[in-house]
């Protein structure tokens, strides 16, 4: 089904996937003597849901941090829209259209859901400090516009009822949803989700899966996610990268990866000689 030379492919459920949005070329990342990622290459295509899976310590989060520009690999290069990406500050990456959520929720606990979501629009605010303080002219226009965007996302993720609730008072599952809302309101081209289902019960997982699919469907957002729950990954994603001990051991559609002997060994363990 996959043809890497072509300009995209059609998924099993009939969605059209576009060209390469982001490409990792021979990435190696070291922390001192520890090699976290060893010579990994893969790409993320426009409009697809791409998963990165692997056992604990495989280097998944490091990989995500490379994509988000938080870590700079010692070797290899990251291409965004076909152009090599120089080392950047995270906010510069955000301006490029990459947004993310975190494994262990990073929201502002004392602020309301709405305010938290609005922070996702910060990179799009250009009014000066004075104008913002007086809430006059451009600042007012910008905020109104951003509020509309925020409200649409709030509506989309069905969190209207907690709009004014301080985030610290929310249960875990809802916090995750608020974090997704904050990432989404930045209107990213590429959305990075770091274990979006971690610590959730079955119902919350189902809800979250639904939202991820809807986001992809409704806004055409490209999504790269890390996930532990194999069932979820296989159901959600179009293509899966499997990592183990910092190396790539599999790459392809879920069914193909599931049948890959290296992957099975990595997950179930194998007798080493």
């Amino acid at each position, binding site marked *: 089904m996959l043809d890497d030379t072509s300009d995209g492919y059609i998924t099993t459920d009939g969605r059209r996937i576009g060209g390469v949005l982001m490409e990792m070329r021979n990435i190696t990342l070291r922390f001192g003597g520890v090699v976290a990622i060893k010579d990994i290459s893969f790409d993320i295509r426009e409009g697809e849901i791409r998963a990165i899976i692997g056992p604990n310590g495989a280097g998944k989060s490091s990989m995500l941090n490379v994509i988000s520009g938080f870590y700079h690999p010692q070797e290899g290069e990251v291409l965004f829209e076909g152009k090599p990406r120089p080392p950047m500050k995270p906010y510069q990456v955000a301006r490029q259209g990459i947004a993310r959520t975190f494994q262990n929720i990073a929201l502002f606990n004392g602020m309301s859901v709405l305010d938290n979501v609005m922070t996702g629009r910060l990179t799009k605010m250009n009014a000066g400090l004075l104008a913002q303080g007086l809430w006059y002219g451009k600042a007012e226009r910008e905020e109104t516009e951003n509020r509309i965007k925020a409200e649409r996302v709030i509506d989309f993720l069905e969190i209207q009822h907690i709009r004014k609730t301080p985030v610290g008072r929310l249960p875990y599952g809802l916090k995750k949803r608020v974090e997704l809302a904050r990432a989404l309101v930045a209107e990213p081209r590429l959305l990075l989700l770091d274990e979006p289902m971690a610590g959730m019960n079955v119902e919350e997982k189902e809800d979250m899966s639904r939202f991820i699919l809807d986001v992809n469907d*409704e806004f055409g957002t490209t999504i790269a996610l890390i996930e532990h729950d194999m069932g979820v990954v296989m159901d959600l994603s179009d293509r899966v990268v499997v990592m183990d001990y910092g190396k790539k051991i599999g790459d392809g559609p879920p069914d193909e990866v599931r049948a890959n002997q290296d992957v099975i060994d990595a997950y179930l363990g194998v007798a080493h000689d």
Partner: protein
Amino acid sequence: MASDVPPPGACQSVPALLTRNATEYADRPAYREKEFGIWQSWTWAQAADDVRDQGLGLMTLGVAEGDHVAIIGRNRPQLYMAIVAIQSTGAVPVPLYNDANAEELAYVLEHCGARFVIAGDQEQVDKVAEIRDRLPELERVIYLDARGLRKYDHGALHALSDLMEKGRAAEALHGPELDRRTAALDYDRKCVMLYTSGTTGKPKGVVLSNRNIIETSRASSEFDHLDCREDVLAYLPMAWVGDFIFSIGQAYWTGFCVNCPESAETMMTDLREIGPTYYFAPPRVFESQLTNVMIRMEDASPAKRHLFEKAMAHARKVGPDILDGKPVSAADRMAYRMYDLLIYGPLKNTLGLSRVRVGYTAGEAIGPEIFDFYRSLGINLKQLYGQTEASVFITQQPDAEVRSDTVGVPSPGVELKIGESGEVYYRSPGTFVEYYKNAESTASTKDPEGWVATGDAGFVEEGTGHLRIIDRAKDVGKMASGALFAPKYVENKLKFYPNILEAVVFGSGRDHCCAFVNIDLTAVANWAERNNVAYGSYQELSQHPEVLRTVGAHVAEVNESIACDEMLSGCQIHRFLVLHKELDADDGELTRTRKVRRRIIEEKFADLIAGLYDGAEQITTETEVTYEDGRKGAIRATLNLQDAVTFPSGGRMAAE
């Protein structure tokens, strides 16, 4: 029955009323809906335009006069307008319960033979798609909220907005025919078909004519002096006759504004923001609001709690009298006014009931204590008694004649009579035309003279002329000793306690009564949190010894109060248990309007009832449950069966 012949030139249909409103109240709000955090409104003129576009859109799909068009979704202005648009094309709207599962939906859609379904969102579209192959007559599905539906096959699926646009473009082609069809609507034409939730058997399609709806709306609006300045909050199921009368019938008759909440979860916030002047809620809503207030007061500081209790004691003493305009001493009036400033006013505001001029509760008997609580705050809460077959109104309470134990005097134009068995019969302009495709049931419910059996037992109080309902006629029974058994009377007493959500009492033909109790998770979980009681699930919490003891104390108190009533003292509860699951409409234990289905519960939990009567202390049971998506599962639980303290008739001494 002279009143139901329309005067010449009168509006004889809802679309005709819309045309009138669009000129008379052109710039007044007809609908408001909170979307994206802001209240959006439609004026009557805009509503008329949208209805026309929808009507024309339906014409382009080939809707014919007399067709049934189903509507399923939560309360939204566009769906209300769809109902009127359907009527304007000469078709008959059939609103359905939006929480019905696919199976229930299949039955009614097949029964009414709907050619079109207007669905609120993806969830409803999916449900219809699931049963599509069983519905040969269904042609097209129209949806309102496009979310998640973009990639669906649009062969027989249309977005309402697209349809309206197509309709607008086809004005020249279909306009004259639409006008002709709207003009042809008269009192004898069908206005709507509503399916009764049915405490027994399959739902029945109640056909109501324009005469039924318009005459009833006119009479009831005049009864309470409603005018175009009222605000109502439309949050009850659109398939329910009450919502149809309030949000369509009375709204179009008087031209008032219907407000739709943002979502089911934001209902309370939206209620507070809108502050309706005319408010309707089933007892359950009032109960849960009161429970929430009580929980929050328990968490308040002692000083605040003391003030609250003092204020409420005073309110109970003089509040209802002040509301009814009875003489109250000046000192009491002053105190009431002061407390109003400090406590009642802010409390009413929190509840969203500050502006309520007329409030109604119906559907089930309301606990007197709950009823009095709201009345004592100065909220003009009244009771009415009605049913789908009567276009709601049978009896209602006039201002200043409000009591918790009656349901009021016959509504204007309604005649009442009590049958030999004690069953209540009525005849009115609102009396339904027929049950659709069910002549047999029609004949057994409505006699040739137009009298309809309500299925409720009651009597008309001498002197006041108020109707009092005892219970469902078929539920009122005799105990083995011959004493009167009225389960609902006992259940309502139990349900007043914030900890108790639902109760089911058994005892017909037995020596004594036993009860099932459902705890109210909001209240009990709050208690558990404050007392450091750990629990893993609803089931575990329900069987916690402390919870059982608390419920036992409530049961004992109820027994004590029942013992004072000579006639009903036999209904004291001897043994009870706390159920391991909440009674649920998805499992068939409640109707969609959340009334207890006694027979089904009796069958389903037969082992538990047997246990209660044979003296067992513990029972392990397995219960089938249905999840929201229709899948089935089973839960196992071990329940503790408890003895209750009972009291001798008339006495106050405890006796085991």
